[in-house]
């Protein structure tokens, strides 16, 4: 393992059941332009986030992150805000799917998610699914094989492109 494989980011830490209504409130859903969504990301939960977030920051939360509405605008807003990846104890299923589909990395890693605090530095190696916090190494839950194919293709859009070009889905 080389240090170069790691991304180094600053943590924004939130609690359990962060819902997609607070990630991006419905009053902004009259567009899906990521540049607009980004300006309101998390504002009902933590107004300081949209002011302070920097590209490469890492969002960490507890259980059931992204619950509620199916709005894909939520992972789009986080991605556009520059969030490198989201680490949580667990994710709500639609949010998890949406994130994989649009290429926002999401990692389930309960021990790490509980250990970190806002402002901490965190290193992430996406290829290995490893995270380092204060010298301790944590392994995220591995993706099922099937999802890895979608991730490897670069998201669902290129995946379907390939399938359509190849004469339909298997």
């Amino acid at each position, binding site marked *: 393992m080389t240090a170069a494989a790691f991304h180094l980011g600053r943590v924004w830490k939130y609690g359990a059941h962060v819902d997609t209504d607070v990630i991006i409130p419905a009053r902004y*859903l009259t567009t*899906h332009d990521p540049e607009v969504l980004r300006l309101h990301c998390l504002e009902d939960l933590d107004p300081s986030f949209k002011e302070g977030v920097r590209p490469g920051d890492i969002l960490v939360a507890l259980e059931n992150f992204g619950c509620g509405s199916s709005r894909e605008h939520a992972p789009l807003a986080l991605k556009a805000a520059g969030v490198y990846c989201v680490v949580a104890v667990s994710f709500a299923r639609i949010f998890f799917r*949406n994130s994989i589909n649009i290429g926002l990395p999401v990692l389930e890693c309960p021990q790490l998610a509980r250990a970190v605090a806002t402002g901490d530095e965190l290193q992430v190696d996406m290829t290995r699914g490893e995270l380092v916090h204060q010298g301790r190494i944590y392994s995220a839950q591995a993706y099922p094989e099937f999802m890895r194919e979608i991730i490897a293709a670069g998201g669902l859009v290129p995946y379907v492109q390939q399938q359509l070009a190849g004469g339909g889905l298997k």
Partner: protein
Amino acid sequence: MEKNLAEKLLARAAGKSEVEPGEFIWAQVDVALANDVTAPLAIAELERMGATQVFDPDRVVLVPDHFMPNKDLAAAAQAKTMREFAIKQGITHYYEVGRMGIAHALLPEQGVVGPGQLVVGADSHTCTYGALGAFATGVGSTDLAAAMATGRIWLRVPHTDRFVYRGRLPRWVGGKDLILYTIGQIGTDGARYRAMEFTGEAISALSMEGRMTMSNMAVEAGAKAGVMAVDHVTLAYTRGRFRGEPVVLQPDPGAVPARVYEWDVSRLQPQVAFPHSPANTRPVGEAGRVFIDQVVIGSCTNGRLEDLRAAAAVLRGRTVHPYVRLLVIPATQRIYLEAVRTGLVEIFVEAGGAVSTPTCGPCLGAHTGVLAAGEKAVATTNRNFVGRMGHPQSEVYLAGPAVAAASAVLGRIAHPEEVCS
């Protein structure tokens, strides 16, 4: 192996003799749904995928319901994108304002969804159709785009948790109270990634409306689907309405769910979910004195005719509290018309309520009844997250239509018995 209902529904959709929980499948989609918020993004993704046509214009359903009638210029532009797409693609089930409704009330009513189907919708409350014996689940816009392009979707077969409701429901208690009670017991991630299977005498005795209210909120417990077996109530509802051929699948008698919850509900009180979680439930008798500014009766959860009747039974001959705004929003045009014909609208208007054309409106804090900072509302909707109905410092209390109506009269959270002795 004996199979749970969700497994049998997904085996059918995957064209397999059987499937196992945890298994990844490619399934054939019977209906793919999007709305004015999720369709524009799905259409953009569809184009990026290089697809020029939807897989079947009879099976892609587009419903403008969220920011409708166009609440502002941006909403109008989104609706226009969807409308033009619907025309270009020759979408059969596109419902214009004046004929539309909130999708999850409209599709069952119009017979577009029915028993045995696999329905995917770019809206989390797509799970509503589980009440009809379908496997129905919410997805995002990109998943929906892939489903529109190919007619297929990948799914992981969920484990099943069975919920058994014993006994006869007391007066004033309905599907909303059962599901709020359930979420209160198991939490908003209590059924995460699972299929909830609702059963028991209390379910058998519920109308289709009450059942849809329950399946609607399965997602509030984190579930992928909220299914119910087809019975004579389902078939009586779909007869003469469902455009397809109902496929009636039942769970095998020996099927073993991952978890079983069983409750005697014969003494259940009407439930209220306090801010800011649908799991923060209490019996209405323990609500205390919560003074309110607004009451919303509507949404895909409780905007059906039975709900309006329950509210009207409380409001008939009474008036809304002077400092309270009552908004009644029939979920579809047909429900609206029935409410006019049967005198319900007259009762609401005479009581001092505002009756609106079908829309999601205040349910998601979009328009037509947004709350100011510090305001409180009782709503028959399904979510009371921070900012859900407007200002992040407003509060939403979730309840069934009878409690909502009684609260409108007294200006505070109230049991219907306090109003109707």
